[in-house]
């Protein structure tokens, strides 16, 4: 079977190389049949990659340990779901998944758009093919998933902490996001190569970008939730290089999603958009490189491997070629119109872009700083949490504010009078919220208070927009208020989906501010019967239990929780000692308050043989809003993503009106 897999990968490599060469030649010489055959080769490459993937999946499911990959990542008694997840667990498998998704997305995006953007597609195909050639080459020559060995009796198995439902969804979502960013990149570069950098590549890839961005966002939130619930150190994001690796392309894509609207509406920021797409794609490659090469110290250590230099070379090549193409086509990218006023919606979008980019680049700087300082000073210097937290506040808080301003301010030029009428109520609402919170004692953290005040402002603008729109639909003859509301959502999915996403970001900001700026912590060494207090909670350590399960000894401390006079029941926290792996894992106790979104978070730091337990306890206000934000985020993205034939037609019409160059 391994031969079949290897052969399928070789065929894929051949097909994508053909698609690259024939596609470029066909496009350059204007030979339609040649270009068409390149397109078909890309589609065929998807199917041959599918065959290779099926072979690997089959080997995993059969527990065929003569496949080195299978033996290294699974074992006989691993549950089926995790056996499947081993597909993307190891390096070779995840590269294969990458190639599969890449060729799949490529084939689909090319098929869907060839009708109305044929002159772009001929150049998009070779760009897709070039990226695919890189991954196919790695899979064939450097990191083959089909290396064979004499089958051992059992595989090495999977680390217990990864045998977890989160790991079924978190990595593939990140991959979908990373790979999805190839689509706008390929269309952008294709449009430039074709000499047709009008707005069509944006229209063609908008949903793809949105999809990739959503997947990346959800993947990260799932990772954060996993860290919070399973890893048990009391946090959800540690600014670790590997976490940052996913955050950076997400930020760049967020900037892109916004500046695209400015280009569609006003025809400016064209060079900017092109550069953002190149940045987002390069960062997604860089993320993979960081994860897989082990050049920086991370708490996530993956199997370190030889693909690092290849990736670095590919990233350098991508950036160099893309920038050369942009430079070459710079005359075509000149905008017809200009930014008219620094107080306008396009300007607000520009500020938003600059802030997102600044945040993205400071994170990048922090990630590579150990390498740079090592090269310059001969000693790696690590920038810690303080660095990232500082810049998150400096750039993140104004970004939050802009989220309220951008969608409401007038295009082109906003007058002072219009600003007053538009923002009167949101500003008052924000000030009232800020004042009320100050009275309630939120002044203990200035950034936290500012975040809450800005969040109130944004929330007020969103509510206002929905109210105004719904009223308008009602006046236009919707039969009932709910009807009016839903027809509003349906009429302009992109806009109102965007507002829902904004609402989720507000929830996220409130959750992060609450749980990081206003949290309380306490620790104490308690003997059974003793109590400790944290915030207004009181915890009495009752007893220590020990249970034996099939693969671990579970030690649990029982805590009676109360607040004031109210008894809140018992909470369990403890450790699992895994017998085979000889590994301890913290099993934290979390009590969520459904009304306030507050968590009581208990870690048993140390359990002594005499039953004394060293507890660390956090009170994290509003932390559950972060997870709710994830659900709202998905909802908003789905609304914006949902196919909308009318809108697509309108966009196509508009790009027709803008007019295409009359050549060819």
């Amino acid at each position, binding site marked *: 079977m391994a031969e079949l897999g290897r052969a399928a990968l070789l065929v894929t490599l051949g097909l994508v190389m053909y698609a690259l060469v024939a596609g470029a030649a066909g496009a350059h010489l204007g030979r339609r049949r040649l270009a068409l055959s390149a397109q078909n080769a890309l589609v065929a490459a998807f199917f041959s990659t599918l065959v290779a993937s099926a072979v690997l999946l089959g080997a995993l499911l059969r527990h065929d340990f003569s496949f080195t990959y299978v033996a*290294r*990542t699974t074992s006989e008694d691993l549950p089926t779901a995790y056996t499947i997840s*081993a597909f993307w*667990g*190891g390096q070779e498998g995840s590269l294969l998944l990458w190639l599969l998704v890449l060729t799949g997305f490529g084939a689909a995006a090319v098929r869907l758009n060839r009708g109305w953007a044929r002159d772009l597609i001929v150049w998009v195909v070779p760009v897709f093919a070039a990226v695919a050639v890189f991954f196919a080459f790695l899979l064939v020559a450097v990191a083959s998933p089909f290396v064979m060995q004499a089958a051992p009796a059992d595989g*090495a*198995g*999977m*680390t217990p*902490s*990864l045998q977890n439902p989160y790991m079924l969804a978190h990595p593939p979502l990140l991959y979908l996001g990373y790979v999805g960013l190839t689509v706008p990149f390929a269309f952008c570069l294709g449009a430039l190569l074709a000499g047709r950098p009008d707005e069509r590549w944006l229209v063609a890839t908008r949903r793809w970008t949105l999809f990739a961005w959503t997947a990346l966002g959800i993947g990260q939130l799932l990772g954060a939730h996993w860290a919070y619930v399973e890893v048990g*150190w009391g946090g959800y994001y540690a600014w670790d290089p590997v976490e940052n690796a996913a955050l950076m392309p997400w930020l760049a894509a967020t900037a892109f999603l916004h500046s695209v609207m400015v280009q569609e509406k006003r025809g*400016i920021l064209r060079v900017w958009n092109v550069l953002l797409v190149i940045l987002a794609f390069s960062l997604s490659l860089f993320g993979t490189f960081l994860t897989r090469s082990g050049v920086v*110290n*991370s*708490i*996530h*250590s*993956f*199997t370190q491997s030889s693909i690092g230099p290849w990736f670095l070379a590919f990233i350098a090549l991508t950036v160099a070629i893309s920038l050369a193409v942009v430079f070459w086509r710079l005359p075509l990218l000149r905008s017809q119109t*200009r*930014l*008219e*006023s*620094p107080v306008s919606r396009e*300007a607000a979008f*520009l*500020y938003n872009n*600059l802030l997102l980019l*600044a945040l993205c680049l*400071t994170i990048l700087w922090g990630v590579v*700083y*150990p390498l740079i*300082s090592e090269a310059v000073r001969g*000693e*790696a*210097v*690590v*920038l*810690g949490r*303080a*660095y990232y937290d*500082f*810049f998150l506040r*400096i750039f993140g808080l104004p970004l939050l504010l802009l989220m309220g301003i951008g969608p409401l301010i007038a295009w082109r030029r906003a007058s002072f009078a219009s600003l007053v009428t538009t923002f009167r109520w949101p500003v008052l609402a924000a000030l009232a919220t800020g004042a009320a919170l100050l009275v309630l004692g939120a002044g203990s953290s200035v950034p936290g208070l500012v975040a809450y005040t800005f969040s109130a402002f944004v929330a007020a603008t969103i509510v206002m927009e929905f109210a105004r729109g719904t009223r308008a639909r009602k006046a236009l003859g919707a039969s009932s208020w709910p009807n009016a509301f839903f027809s509003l959502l349906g009429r302009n999915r992109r806009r109102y989906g965007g507002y829902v996403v904004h609402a989720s970001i507000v929830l996220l900001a409130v959750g992060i501010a609450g749980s990081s700026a206003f949290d309380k912590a306490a*620790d104490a*060494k308690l003997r059974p019967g003793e109590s400790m207090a944290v915030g207004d909670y009181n915890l009495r350590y009752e007893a220590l239990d020990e249970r034996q399960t099939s693969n671990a000894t579970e030690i649990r401390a029982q805590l009676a929780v109360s607040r004031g006079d109210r008894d809140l029941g018992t909470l369990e926290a403890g*450790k699992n000692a895994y017998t085979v792996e000889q*590994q*301890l*894992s*913290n099993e934290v106790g979390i009590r969520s308050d459904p009304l306030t979104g507050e968590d009581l978070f208990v*870690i048993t*730091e*140390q359990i002594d043989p005499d039953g004394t337990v*060293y507890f*660390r306890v956090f009170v994290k206000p509003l932390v559950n809003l972060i997870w709710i934000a994830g659900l709202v985020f998905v909802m908003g993205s789905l609304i914006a993503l949902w196919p909308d034939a009318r809108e697509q037609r309108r966009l196509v019409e508009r790009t027709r009106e803008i007019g295409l160059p009359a050549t060819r």
Partner: protein
Amino acid sequence: MARKASPARLVIALSVAAVLAVFLLYTSIAGGGNPSIAPSELGTRTEKVQLAGLVVGPVRGDSHAGGLRFALRDIGGKHRTRVNVLYAGSVPDLFKVGRHIVIDGRLRNGVFVAEPGSMITKCPSKYAPKQDGGPA
């Protein structure tokens, strides 16, 4: 082509200046982070550093009472230099002899006194084969 100065350019130029200013502000207030070094490179340096190394036993003491004592040596193992460490605060589950850890602290009287709660252990390698006591 003669173009009137566009507000866009002004905005971008000002923003870049603002970002640089913020950056300078940060580095002047918060300093530039800690050097990350291996135990063999510590020598007699006494400034605050981040030490990344391999835990060597015996591990004695109580991290919540008087502190945990152990030694660190280089990962990779060309150097046999050991640094004695005193650590208080929370100990990650994965901490044990043979693991890679990272801690912040400074050298005092020949003992590396770690900042409480600064210990990070590296996750056992995601999907690598088991190795007895070896690097994870």
